[in-house]
Each structure stands twice: as C-alpha cells, then as structure tokens.
C-alpha cells in the first residue's frame, strides 16, 4: 500500500515539512486512489480534482517561498455533500438539489480552505442526512470498504467510506443523532460529534437545527483532533455558535487516563438488541481503560430509553420546516405545473425520497395545532430529562463509555424495508445529541466476522479535550491496523 495513503494527517504534515512528499504528491495519490476504487465504494458524488491539485500546488509554492501555512496544509479532506461549496455541486444526496451549485462556502469549508487543506470533493450521504446506512442517497449507496456487500453506516456514509477506503485521510461529516459516530463505528474510524455550537452550522444544509453538528472522521485520534481544531470556534453567522475560540485539543492528547473517572452506562450494555460481538469488544475496551489507570464507575441514564422516541419527534418536526424551502421556486428541481401551488407539490413529490417524505409528514403532524403539546412539547421535556441524567452522571465521572451502535456493519438492503430497525442503530448515539454534548466513536477491534466495532466515549459540554485524551490512550494501547481487512474487503484479492 502506498505510504501516502495510509499516513495520518499529522504524518502527512510531517512528511511535507521534512521534504519527503509534496502536497501535489499527496493530492495526486489520493485522487488516483479515488479513481481506482470509487467504482466499488461510491464514496464521492463529486470529485474536485483540478481544484484539489491547484490548492496543493499553491501549498507547495508557498512552502518553497517560506510563507506561513495553515494547520492542515496539503492534507486532503473529503467533505460531506451537506456543506455548501461555492460553485461546486451540493446536493445533500437529494434529487431535489441535483446540479445545485451554492453561491457561497459553508463556514466549515471556508475554514478548511483557510487552513490550507486540500478539498478532494463531496461525499455521498443519506438524503438530507436522514438515514443510518447511506442507502437513502438518491444517487445510490456507498459501500463499506471492510466488506463491500455491507453499508458503511450513515448518514455520513461517503465521508466514512472515503476515509476507510484510504481515499482521504480526513473527512468532515455531520451528526444529528449519530450520523458521524455510527458510520465511524461501522467503518472502523474515529468519528467525533462535537458539543452543539462548537462548530458553525452556517452553510450546512439543515436537517434538525437544534441537533445538527459537524465533525471530523479520521483513522486516528490525533487526525480527528487536528481537523476539529480547524473547523471549531465561534462564527458570528451562526447565532447558536458558542462565543469562544476553538479549544486546544492536541496539547493534552497524550496525557493518558490515569485517575480519569470513566462512567460505564449500565443501560447501554444491558440493551436487548446489542450484538454479542459488539458487547464483548466494548467490555474489553472498558477493562483496558481500567488497566490503563482509569477509575471505572457504574452510572445510570434512566431516561436514555426515551431519547430515541423523543428524537423522532424533534428531528422530524424541525426537518418538516427546514425542508420547506425546497419548493422549486428559487433553486434546484422544478417540475412544471398549472399553478405555483401545484408546481411546489409535484416538485416535492418528485424530488424527495421516501424517508425524507416520511419524516416531513411525521414532523408536520407533530407540529399541527392540537398535537403540538402532546408531541413536540413532550419530546422537549424528555430532552430536558435526558440532559439532566447526563448532568447527574458527570457529577461522578469525567467521561461516559458504551457501545456506539448496537451492531456492526449490516448488509445492503437488510433494513431498508423496516425504518424502525434502521432507527434503532442510533439508540446509543441519540442521548448525547439531545444533551448537546460531545461524543466520539473509537475503533476497538472486530467482531467474529472481522467487522469493526466502535466504542462510544461521551463527555460533558465542551469536554472534547478530555474525551479525545481518553480515546488516544485506548487507541495507543490497542494499536489496531486501520486498513480494511476481511474476506470481502476492498483490499482483499479480487477473485
């Protein structure tokens, strides 16, 4: 395997500083990798090869001239197709935005550019970030590089698949109820859902505004921390952005877990649908944390069991309003009809997929006069209770741990007929989303089929540094090979 492809983001920075690789070498290696593998992985909806090479050449030129460079100089990044990219097609995985070219860059994208990262292109996703497998993309599913018959998870399916397939060392995705953590878990990656408000939502096509949060994918903790530092920090264009500068996440990364109080969420490990292979790896990982000097504490999140139903009221309610603007009037698809009202109706009928329509209908119903209190207001109360559970737990511990997802990567088509079984994939990730608190998924080994298992590490609001430090300690101790392996993996010899 090409060393530039397996290198982490910090390693790619070091290679360039040492003069052992240029940004153009790195960009070309990854673009070649995409060209060679994406027919099978389908991680990308749009590859911006020319712009990537130009950006890389600019980095090389400036490095040669001794000019200052950004913290991600020459490091390729794949961007979920939910982020506005000026002049570059941005579809949110939806037919209704086919060919849509935004007139501006999302803040996350602007910050990647400002950090001199090399954006490779836009990654596939469940339509408008609604889904847990990538199969709700209007442009066909992405595949899991660990087993091409299986899903990479979702909704940030392409971002996860790209990093797992060594097409990019870093990707940015978005997480509303688990859309970074669950695909990170299923694809053997580090995926971070930051504190709500840490990363600007400006230019991120909204699904559920009170929950949506952007975050990084990487094959290593340091790469994820580096990318998060770059995209985090206050943005005056987002009123919900936390008014403080980006935290320093790298400085304390190697400090270990000695004395760290790690809460083990009892309810998560006792969940019926938790696959034995997942449970075994998660329990192993927890024991390792104990051996590394962490203090293990049993904690309970009694209301966490109500988080999923509350989420499926709040998120569809917000989405039903957020997705109203796709009406055929100003941009995107327009299906002609006799009247403006009919045009809007037939455009939306033709442009949205089944899952999106399902959630718009659920949300419209939940917000309707006469039902609002019973559904939306009740769900917000549950949200408050879940948040309090976390607050109680964090009085006794610094981070919480549990599984990220109840099972490892499932086969394409396995859950498409049953939305509820699909929703249950996010049962462990949704509680911290409702609390607005950070959480990540860290690869902790494989199940009996050789498929990756993720450990979820959760922290209180703005506890990213502690959370990443715990992840790094465990990562170092496990020393797993992040390159996909397995019978039907991308790297397996073709029959």
């Amino acid at each position, binding site marked *: 395997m090409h060393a530039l492809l397996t290198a982490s983001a910090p390693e790619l920075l070091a290679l360039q500083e040492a003069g052992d690789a240029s940004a153009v070498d790195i960009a070309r290696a990854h673009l070649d990798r995409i060209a060679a593998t994406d027919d099978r992985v389908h991680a990308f909806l749009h590859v911006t090869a020319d712009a990537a090479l130009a950006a890389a050449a600019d980095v090389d030129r400036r490095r040669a001239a001794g000019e200052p460079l950004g913290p991600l100089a020459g490091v390729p990044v794949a961007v979920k197709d939910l*982020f*506005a990219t000026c002049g570059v097609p*941005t579809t*949110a995985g939806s037919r209704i*935005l086919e060919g*849509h070219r*935004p*007139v*501006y860059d*999302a803040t996350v994208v602007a910050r990647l550019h400002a950090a001199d990262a090399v954006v490779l292109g836009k990654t596939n996703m469940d339509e408008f970030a609604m889904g847990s497998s990538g199969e709700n993309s209007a442009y066909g599913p992405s595949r899991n590089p660990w087993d091409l018959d299986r899903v990479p998870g979702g909704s940030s399916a392409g971002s996860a698949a790209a990093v797992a397939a060594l097409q990019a060392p870093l990707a940015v995705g978005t997480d509303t109820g688990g859309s970074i953590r669950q695909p990170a878990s299923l694809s053997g990656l580090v995926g971070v859902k930051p504190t709500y408000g840490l990363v600007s*939502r*400006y*230019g*991120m*096509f*909204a699904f*559920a*505004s*009170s929950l949506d949060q952007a975050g990084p994918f990487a094959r290593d903790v340091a790469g994820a921390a580096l990318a998060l530092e770059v995209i985090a920090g206050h943005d*005056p*264009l*987002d*009123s*919900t952005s936390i008014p403080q500068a980006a935290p320093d996440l790298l400085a304390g990364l190697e400090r270990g877990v000695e004395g760290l109080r790690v809460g083990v969420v009892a309810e998560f490990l006792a969940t019926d649908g938790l696959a034995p292979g997942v449970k075994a790896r998660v329990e192993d990982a927890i024991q390792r944390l104990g051996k590394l000097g962490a203090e293990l504490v049993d904690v309970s999140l009694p209301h966490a069991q109500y988080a999923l139903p509350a989420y499926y009221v709040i998120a569809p*309610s*917000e989405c*039903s*309003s957020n997705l*109203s*603007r*796709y*009406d055929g*009037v*100003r*941009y995107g698809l327009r299906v002609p009809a006799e*009247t*403006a*009202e009919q045009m*809007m109706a037939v455009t939306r009928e033709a442009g949205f997929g089944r899952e999106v329509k399902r959630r718009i209908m659920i949300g*419209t119903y939940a*917000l*309707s*006069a006469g039902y*609002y209190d019973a559904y*939306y207001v009740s769900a917000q109360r549950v949200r408050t209770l879940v948040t309090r559970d976390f607050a109680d737990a964090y009085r006794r511990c610094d981070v919480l741990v549990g599984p990220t997802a109840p099972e490892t990567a499932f086969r394409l088509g396995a859950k498409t007929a049953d939305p509820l079984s699909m929703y249950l994939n996010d049962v462990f990730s949704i509680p911290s989303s409702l609390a607005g608190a950070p959480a990540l998924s860290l690869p902790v080994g494989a199940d009996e089929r050789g498929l990756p298992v993720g450990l979820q590490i959760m922290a209180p609001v703005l506890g990213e540094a502690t959370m990443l430090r715990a992840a790094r300690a465990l990562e170092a101790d496990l020393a797993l090979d992040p390159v996909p392996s397995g019978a039907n993996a991308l790297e397996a010899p073709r029959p």
Partner: protein
Amino acid sequence: MSTTTSVEQATRYEAVIGLEVHVELATRTKMFCGCAIGFGGEPNSRTCPVCLGMPGSLPVVNGAAVESAIRLGLALGCEIAPTSQFHRKNYFYPDMPKDYQISQYDVPICLRGELRITVDGRERTIGITRVHMEEDTGKSLHVGGSGRIAGSDHSLVDYNRAGIPLLEVVSEPDLRSAEEARAYLAELRAVVLALGISDAKLEEGSMRCDANVSLRPVGHTVFGTRVEVKNMNSLRSLGRAIDHEIERQTRVLTAGDPVVQETRHWDEDAGVTSPLRSKESVDDYRYFPDPDLLPVEPDADWIDRLRAELPELPAVTRARLAGLGLPAPQVAVLVDTGLVRVLDAALAAGAAPALAANLLTNDLVGWAAANGTDPADAPLTGAALAELVGLVADGTLSTKLARQVLEAVLGGEPGGPRAIAEARGLVQISDTAELEAVVARVVAADPAAAQRVRDGNAKAIGALVGAVMRETRGRANPRLVNELLERHLHP
C-alpha cells in the same frame, strides 16, 4: 334598502374594531442579514443567501431592529419582555424564501401598552395588546390575468423586500368606529415618526394596516364573528373599508344570516370588500420556536437608557406647539407629516413660530402635493427655513415672495434663501421714495378709482394696491403701499 331602515340598524349594532399594523423599520440592514434596505433598484439586487433562503444559510438578529422595537414599546407604555422568542410561522408561498416566516408568537418583545386618541374632542385610550418583531416577505408580480396569482400567466418574485424588519402592533378590540380607527392609525404613525424608526408611508407600504371588524348588538359584551380586512393603503381607505364592512355585516345580520369568519380584500376603486382566497385559507401555521435563534434578552440598563432617550411624543408636541399659539389644525398637520422636526430645527435657529409654521403647512405641503412627494421628504432644513422666516420678519420679503423663494429652495436651487432672493431680484421694495413715485403714477392713471376712495369707498383701494403690485412685479411691501395710498388720497 331605504335610508330609514339603515339608520335603525345602525343603532342596533355596535362595531368592534382592532387593528394590526405593520411598520417597516428604517434600519440600515435587514432583520436577519447584512443586506441593505432601500427603495427601487433592480429586482433581487439587495439579496444574499440568507434572505433568499438558500440552503444552509442562517439568520442573525439585527440589534438595531430590536432597539426600534423596544423604543416603540416604551413609547406605547408597554412592558418590555426580559426574554422573548422568535418562532417559525410555516406556510408555502412563492414570495416566502424559506416557506416559513420568522416571527414572534406567544412570547413577543412588548406587551400591554396603550395609545390615547382624540375623536370629536373626546379622548379615548386604546389598548395595545403587543408589539412583535418579524421579517417581511418578497413581492410577487403576477403577469397576465387579473394581476392576482390565480389566473395569471406567470409570476415574478422580487426578494429585495424579503427580510426587511417589521414591527407588528396589535391593538385591543377597543375601537368603535372608522373615525376612531383612523385616529388610532394616525396617532400610531405620528409616534413612529417621532421615534424616527420608519418613514411610515401608508401609500408605499412601509406602514400597513389590517382591520378586524365585527358587530354585536349594542349593550352586549360577547364579540361577534370577526372579519379581517386587508389592502387599505391610506387613512382614507382604512375609513372607507371599515365603514363599508360595518354596512355589509349589518346587512348580513339584519337578513338573519351569520357573518362568515374570513379574510376580505378591500378594493379601493370599487369601494367594496370581497373574500380573499390565499394563504389565509391555511389556518395551521405549525408555529414552533426557531432553533436557529436564541431568545432575545435585552439587558435592563439598555432598556433604561432607551427609555431616558425617548424623544418628545406627539401628544406632548401638540401641547407645546399649541402653547406657541399655533392653531390646532396646523399643529395636526405638522405632527402628522413629521414636519415638526423641520419646524423645531427652525425654531432652534431663532425663527418666529407662526411664520415658520405657515410656510410649512401651507406652502411646503402644497408644493409636495403638487409634486406628488411626501412632505417629509422635502429638501428643506430647519436652518434654511429659519433664514427664510428671517427675511420675511425683517421686511426683506413679502410672504408671497417668500413662497417663491421656498419653491426655489425645494426645487433644488443652491445658495440658500437670501442668496436666491437676491439673485432673482425678489427682494421686497420697502423704500418709501421709490414706492411714492409708483403710487403717484397709479393714482394719476386711474382717477375714477382714486375718486371712489376719496368718496369713502374703502374697498376701492384694492384696485390701486393691485396696480402698484403689478408695476413692481409683486415686490412692493403691501403694508407700505396701503399706507402711502391712504396718505396720498386722504392727505
């Protein structure tokens, strides 16, 4: 229907009227983005991803709009909510960029105020339910058909207006007649002008008014079914629409039919209201708190400062102007047009009140009407007005010549009143010797008129004064001409 019957019915029912007034704020930028606010210009030239509702864009509250809302609330005696919230009002319409409007709903920024009005010498206090902030929509232009969306060939949308901050002022149903409604709207407009938060032009839509009208038998306390009437774009049209709606509902009730709760469109030309089929047929807006915006929490110090810095409000202004000896109708014009600002600036520069007020309410208002402009937009500073008044006071100009100079100033002639008067040779002739010669000539030219004056016919002197004015092209000092003629004819 005979006149007698309608008089009888008019005594049986009482009108209950509440107004919802939208005030377009004259902030520099829009409610939730940095786009400029202005009139005219190319369609969609003052737009950005936020006010076009582009995917991914987010609103950020304009602090200046919040300040305007608080100031109006304070002027109306409202409580300023320590925490208020923006909601989303969801409905589909092509001129709504996001297909929801960001508006305040159950937690508005200002609550429970009042406005005093005077109708026929009787003062009444009208309750203000609330003042809340929201964003304006774009403007649709329906091409072909009747000009309404139904039946048009196609529609064009201009989003320059989309996102302009609006304040909605909701009154209690305390108004009882078209006259009271007009007085209320005029008074509210005067308050808004005094605060300087909007140009409040009903004709141009920067102030818009919907009326909720219902009838109930006199003496009853339960409200009747209300009808919302839209599209009144002047005080006159508000009065006409309400009168029409009262008559219409009276007819319906007298015929034993129920009034249908609906929204009706006022047709200014036809002078009737008709049912409006539009977005209002959707009655469930699915309001919920906008998750993109934090609650508005103005700090108490800010509110106190705004309260302390409130300008003089119209009721106080009227009393003050009356104290200067100006007659009530003139005071009303000065306050309603907003010209009181110019007057006050002129007074501050030492102008005599009556002369200054006359030039404004007679001459400037007349000039604006003839030119089809708003008096408030007239290019006259208080300093220029004071200079002009000074020229009249010291006898340099007659009031008639002052009018000519004023028109020159308003027409954009540079230099100021004194320079204009001198350049045009308009300076009044107050030179006794010069006028004496003209008087002598005029008397000699019309001996018959001169004789009539000598015979005691006082009115006959008018013809001679007129002749002197003609000879001097209006520049003669009229008072002096009269004196000289009297002396000449009654030595």
